[in-house]
């Protein structure tokens, strides 16, 4: 299974390119799933369908779905409230969920919910499809989502080291005193018995798998840009950030190029892809008037995708 993340500034044509790519791959007989993580959700509009978080068949080999970030966050919070209530059942009378509902406004929760949804999607659907095409939210949010595995792994590493020292000290105390319990709580002194360490390792494993996949050969980041100054600036920032995160930027699409400004378009491509010799580049002409079935109307993207 291969994945393509279509990224870029808002309005450059990410969703159109993603849907065209999905359509063209499906026409070649490949099993394709196109998923939108963009809260604007243009994918359904492009294909003329009302989409939800359940995949919907559009054509013989093409399935579509939209991930609702708000629902994904709510699901994540509900799961954790249930876990908390299960453990601290004596707190139930205090209507704890009221306090934890506020968590959905906490910074980073939406990004995490998106990443969890993405991880689940890739895990569940990897056997069912040859290609998964992902239409991402605008640059800022996409970068925060894609950076999350790296940031989280470095935090987990630090927390694991501290937890390891705590368990070492507890082990020493246990060996001398013959027991270790405080305030009526029996404390774990071995890594295998410590729930916090177990949970940290579990989260680490999840993020490690996702990071390996995102950085691997089966994943490609596609940057869609337009031949104008603002798009150049933002795409440059995006490409630099992708490099920093070691994410595989492999394809660039210069969309909405006009014949009369071909020279300018070439210049922008040169500026953007300087020091990026291995990137496959494709130029898509502006279509006037914009076509109704946009997914059928752009050039052959499979040349650069396959």
């Amino acid at each position: 299974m291969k994945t393509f993340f279509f990224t870029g500034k808002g309005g450059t044509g990410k969703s159109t390119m993603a849907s065209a790519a999905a359509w063209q791959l499906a026409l070649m007989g490949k099993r394709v799933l196109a998923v939108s993580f963009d809260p604007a959700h243009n994918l359904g509009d492009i294909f003329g369908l009302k989409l939800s978080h359940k995949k919907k068949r559009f054509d013989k080999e093409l399935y579509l779905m939209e991930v609702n970030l708000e629902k994904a966050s709510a699901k994540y919070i509900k799961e954790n409230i249930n876990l908390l209530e299960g453990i601290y059942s004596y707190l139930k009378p205090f209507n704890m969920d009221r306090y934890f509902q506020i968590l959905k406004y906490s910074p980073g929760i939406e990004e995490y919910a998106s990443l969890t949804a993405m991880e689940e999607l890739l895990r569940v659907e990897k056997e069912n499809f040859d290609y998964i095409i992902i239409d991402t939210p605008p640059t800022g949010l996409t970068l925060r989502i894609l950076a999350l595995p790296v940031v989280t792994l470095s935090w987990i590493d630090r927390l694991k080291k501290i937890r390891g020292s705590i368990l070492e000290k507890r082990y020493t105390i246990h060996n001398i005193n013959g027991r270790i319990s405080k305030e009526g709580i029996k404390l774990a002194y071995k890594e295998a018995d410590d729930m916090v360490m177990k949970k940290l390792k579990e989260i680490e494993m999840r993020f490690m798998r996702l990071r390996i996949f995102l950085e691997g050969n089966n994943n490609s980041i596609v940057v869609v840009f337009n031949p104008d100054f603002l798009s150049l600036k933002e795409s440059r920032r995006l490409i630099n950030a992708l490099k920093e995160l070691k994410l595989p930027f492999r394809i660039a699409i210069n969309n909405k190029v006009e014949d009369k400004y071909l020279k300018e378009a070439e210049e922008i491509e040169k500026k953007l892809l300087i020091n990026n010799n291995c990137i496959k580049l494709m130029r898509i002409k502006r279509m006037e008037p914009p076509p109704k079935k946009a997914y059928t109307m752009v050039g052959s993207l499979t040349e650069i995708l396959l």
Partner: protein
Amino acid sequence: MLLKDFLMKIINVFKWFFSVLGESHRSRVTELTSYEERELENIFILLLMGSFAGIPAPPAFLAVELFPFLEYELRILETRAKDSSDALAELAGLMDIG
């Protein structure tokens, strides 16, 4: 028979005396390690919930996922927050000063 009972009682008293003495020695020996362990627990939970104290914090979901297993650490955090003005006295007590 009476003498045997008497001797057994004396032995038990000695056993109890030495066990208490041993325990007191052992807890004296582990006092510093316990203090270190408590401080590390405090640092761990402070790091995890740093956003509440205005220090750089890991992503919020890490705290959320670990929260259910941190009852003891949360109690330590609360105690340390209450005793924070008296940290020097605790250290002095630990070192047998004063």
